[in-house]
């Protein structure tokens, strides 16, 4: 199980690196085309914005752990073991409920965008925006899994900031 997860994670990382690379390269193409060749191309901007949107939510869906996220964990770090478990459980529960509640409407919004296309590459916008839906589903699944683990008495993550010995 662990090996499959690690393999999937590595592939997800490949995708993220690929997206960031495309973004970087299209920027360079944009600069070269505008300032060196004097023949600006217009598709680069849209490609940059699309890959940026995808990198953010792809990472957030599959790769960002709690320690990668910007967090306010002063109270969490100070709390004792039992308290920490309770906090982690409650937080996960709240996130799952909120995301589940807004999922149908958000999904509706995204699929409604199928009638529109992007400006230069003419990609259907529901495809472009679908990554946000994927992010919501993945977040619900990941935090749902955490609730399940914590409720069964599984280990909680150590606080991120610990004083070195």
């Amino acid at each position, binding site marked *: 199980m662990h090996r499959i997860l690690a393999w999937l994670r590595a592939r997800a*990382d490949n995708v*993220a*690196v690929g*997206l*960031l*690379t495309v*973004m*970087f390269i299209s*920027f*360079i193409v944009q*600069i070269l085309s505008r*300032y060196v060749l004097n023949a600006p191309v217009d598709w680069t*901007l849209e490609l*940059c*914005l*699309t890959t*940026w*949107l995808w*990198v*953010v*939510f*792809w*990472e*957030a869906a599959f*790769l*960002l752990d*709690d320690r*990668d*996220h*910007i*967090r*306010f*964990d*002063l*109270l*969490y770090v100070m709390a004792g073991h039992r308290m920490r478990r309770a*906090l*982690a459980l*409650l*937080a996960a529960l*709240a*996130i799952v409920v*909120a*995301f589940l*509640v*807004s999922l*149908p*409407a*958000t999904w*509706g*919004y*995204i699929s409604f965008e199928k009638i529109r296309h992007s400006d230069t590459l003419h990609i259907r916008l529901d495809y*472009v*925006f679908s990554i*946000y839906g994927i992010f919501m589903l993945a*977040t619900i699944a990941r935090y749902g899994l955490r609730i399940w683990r914590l409720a069964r008495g599984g280990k909680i993550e150590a606080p991120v*900031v610990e*004083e*070195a*010995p």
Partner: protein
Amino acid sequence: MSVSFALCFVALFVLAGMGAPIALSMIGAAIVYLVVSGQDLSLAGEQIIQGLYGSFVILAVPLFIIAGNLMNAGTVSERLLAFCNAIVGRFRGGLGHVNVVVNIILSGMSGSAVADAAAIGKVIIEMMTKDGRYPAGYAAAITAAAATIGPIIPPSIPMVLYSLISDASIGYLFLGGVVPGLLMGLVLMLLNARAARTRNFPVEAPVPLRQVPRVTARAFPALLMPVILLYGIYGGVTTPTEGAALAAGYALLLAGPIYRALGWRGLYNVLSSSARQTASIGIVIGGALIFNYIVAAENIPAHMAAYLEGLHLNPLAFLIVVNLILLFLGCLLDASTIILVVLPLFIPSCRALGIDLVYFGVVAVVNCMIGLITPPYGVVLFVINGITGIPLSTIIREIWPFIGMLIVALILMILFPEIVLWLPQQFGYKGTVG
């Protein structure tokens, strides 16, 4: 304030307080708001998607992250360190001065204090503490304090974020940071010179003069980076976002073909960690976008501006109050959260009071950067603790005088707006204060 907004606020504090990621807390709180106020639940997602997909300016953030990581991997910082050591290492307390000067140069290439601290922290702190020359806490503290200059001297990720929420020009914001950044360097060096005398820090054996040209030549391509970047942006050649791409491209050239310090594997790792950092800031930007939408829909800034007007504050008193609030928040919150979520509340009041937004932005960003080294929550302190193993308590004992000096610099900037605005005005900026 409506009930739904109050509940939204409570939800944000409770969720974030429980240790949930700030971004997810903001999205969750926004959903609470939409449910209670009976609005369309898809609004949260819509605002986030449209906001991130529709802003060209934000793209500078991932590009500056890539540029910074490439330089860290490409031995750029070590070369700069050797160069600065040859120039200022010969004075009493020399390595302390080297630390500040190398951070000033590095800040002309990178836009993040955390990246700067990570880049040179380990090497310079090891140099300083070798044979017990400097106390570990002092070495760590001055490194942390000097790293805060990074996002003040352009380029700067926090200033890109500020420009996003205030519509102030990034170009002028960047220019406005130059003199304040140098001022911060100056006060830190003054403090170091004093400490070197009273605590009798050692004098290093000076690097022989005939070695200086060689050390300079090794660092020269790296030293060109700020020049290229600033010329690109202020020569009117590129936009700041394209400047960021140029910086990343040049950093790739330096690390790869020029310094031969980065192979394919290394490049992959740089991009992988850049993607991670990009997303962790990007998703907070997303959360802030929906939160700012709610704050605007509730007309909070107008209420706040009216309230402040009722207090008959003059601009200076307003700035002092705001800076005290920001310093306090800086002890508890991350800088990007403060800039994206808290600062928008003050912008309408600034407009009403006639406070220039470039000036306000630079002062606020300096303030937030001080927040990076104020305990108990100071990201740069954590980074240095993480890479050197020097206990936080040891660093914190020595950090106070540095925080004090940086606050002195901040007060000077508040009292004398010319420190910020003089340089932008030389480049045609029309804004003034009062």
